[in-house]
């Protein structure tokens, strides 16, 4: 495991007018991230994602708990952790008056890399992230997407073992997002472990090998996107038929059906694996002469998982 945390905690004292209030931002996070995977942190605003990442990146001292990152102990050797990780902040980190290339060279040199090597790395990163064209323009002239790509390039300029990306695609248009997904996958191909946060369901689903769902400072579920969805509900086969009630009766005792629900025109069957269930469903209906008007396989979304775990929908929060 390249990242292992145990009981990581952080609370903030915040002042609202006269009153001082304590916000428990992160309340006991246990995580393990395997080398070479894209690990996602999915959660609504204020869940504690950034706070956890900032603790792991040595920017914030945890109130409690331990973490080992790329073999270095977070508390005992923060300097060593810094050398082995890259971190891309949620809010970006480029300076308006500098050019992308200058930022990259400087950042590489802050890791102790020599000048010539730093320049070579900067040129490489500019190519990788398709920034070469704008490399010598000031950052203030960049588009949001270009700027975000510079941020990511900064995070990996020293070839870290682990890179933390805090909301790498927030604020990007759909096309740039798709692009960014490609770039994140490239990082994995280069052998890096990527730890990212997001509050986009589709992004967590499509991009992450494994993810943890965070809510209110705690991890409420962890696993591959497919496992998480499977574990909660399985798939749903919905059948449109005239005689819904009659059809429903046929599945009361079917072993592969976990639960049967009916609405006016349709029958919803919760099954473990939709693809293998559909032929059974069709055969059963056909044998009893139930005419069907349509059949649909619905895979549960991560939102369904979030709903099941927290009682709220991620879309609403």
């Amino acid at each position, binding site marked *: 495991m390249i990242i292992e945390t145990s009981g990581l905690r952080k609370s903030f004292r915040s002042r609202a007018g006269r009153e001082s209030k304590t916000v428990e931002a992160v309340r006991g996070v246990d995580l393990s991230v395997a080398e070479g995977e894209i690990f996602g942190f999915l959660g609504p605003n204020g869940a504690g994602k950034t706070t956890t990442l900032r603790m792991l990146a040595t920017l914030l001292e945890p109130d409690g708990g331990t973490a080992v990152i790329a073999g270095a102990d977070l508390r005992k050797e923060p300097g060593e952790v810094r050398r082995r990780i890259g971190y891309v902040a949620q809010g970006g980190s480029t*300076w308006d008056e500098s050019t992308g290339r200058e930022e990259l060279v400087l950042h590489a040199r802050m890791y*102790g890399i020599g000048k010539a090597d730093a320049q070579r790395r900067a040129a490489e990163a500019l190519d990788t992230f398709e920034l070469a064209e704008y490399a010598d323009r000031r950052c203030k002239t960049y588009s949001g997407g270009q700027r975000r790509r510079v941020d990511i390039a900064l995070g990996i300029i020293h070839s870290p073992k682990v890179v933390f990306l805090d909301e790498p695609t927030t604020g990007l248009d759909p096309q740039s997002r798709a692009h960014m997904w490609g770039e994140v996958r490239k990082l994995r191909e280069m052998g890096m472990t990527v730890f990212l946060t997001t509050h986009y369901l589709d992004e967590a689903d499509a991009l992450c090998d494994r993810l943890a769902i965070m809510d209110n400072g705690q991890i409420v579920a962890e696993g591959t996107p497919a496992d998480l969805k499977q574990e909660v509900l399985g798939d749903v086969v919905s059948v449109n038929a005239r005689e819904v009630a009659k059809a429903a009766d046929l599945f009361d005792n079917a072993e592969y059906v976990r639960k049967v629900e009916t609405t006016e025109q349709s029958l919803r069957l919760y099954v473990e694996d939709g693809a293998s269930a559909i032929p059974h469903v069709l055969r059963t209906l056909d044998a009893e002469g139930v005419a069907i008007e349509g059949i649909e396989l619905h895979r549960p979304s991560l939102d369904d998982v979030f709903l099941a775990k927290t009682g709220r929908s991620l879309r609403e929060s």
Partner: protein
Amino acid sequence: MKFLRDTWLVFQRQMQLLLRNPVWVAVGIIQPLFYLLLFAPLMKKALSGGQPISDELAYQIFVPGMLVMVALFSAFSGFGIIAELRAGVIERNRVTPVSRVALLLGRSLRDVVQLLFQAVLVTLLAVPFGLRVAVGDALLAYLLIGLMTLLLSSTGYALGLTLRSEDAMAPMLNTVIQPIMLLAGIFLPLTLAPAWLQNVAKANPFKWATDGVRALFAGHPGDDAVWQALAVLTPLTVLALLISSRTFAKSVR
């Protein structure tokens, strides 16, 4: 040595950005000119109590005051650091293994270079008006001014990083700098002040700095005021550097 290399790295970057936007050079020339043209003649009269004194003497009193004033303004460095904080640059620096003292010192040294440039400019501009000063004395005076800048700019950075908002920073600086300026005898030497005011002023480290710089411009490097200024400024500067680099190291959001 890593620390020196890191400091150089930060300093270089800051200088590069400074030179990219040379408005400050123009400002640095125009501001002192205002004082030399519009204020110095008035002060010359006031100093002498109606009796004419030589231009040389007047500018030997006036120019040091102006140098100290310009140095005092380096406390405004805090505004720049708030902008960097907001842009995420400080956090980006802090996530690297770069020396925390270097993050501060590289920036403060940029301020020192900028200020010394301005100080030389002010001195040179005053020469046509009648100022005379020995090069050695001026260099020693610049050392004092440089120390002051290091002290004030690093304090400014610590303040900026702690307050994290321009709105909190501006009134705070104004409130602190005003009495410091008035009690430093910048425009009129405090020898003209009543005794109680002179005693209050003794608590102001920059009063000692002004006296030291004045003694040097008057051509008395052996004067007590010179070593006293050094003795007051040096420990304060070291302390400010220590405290500020701690704020760079500490978690800052």
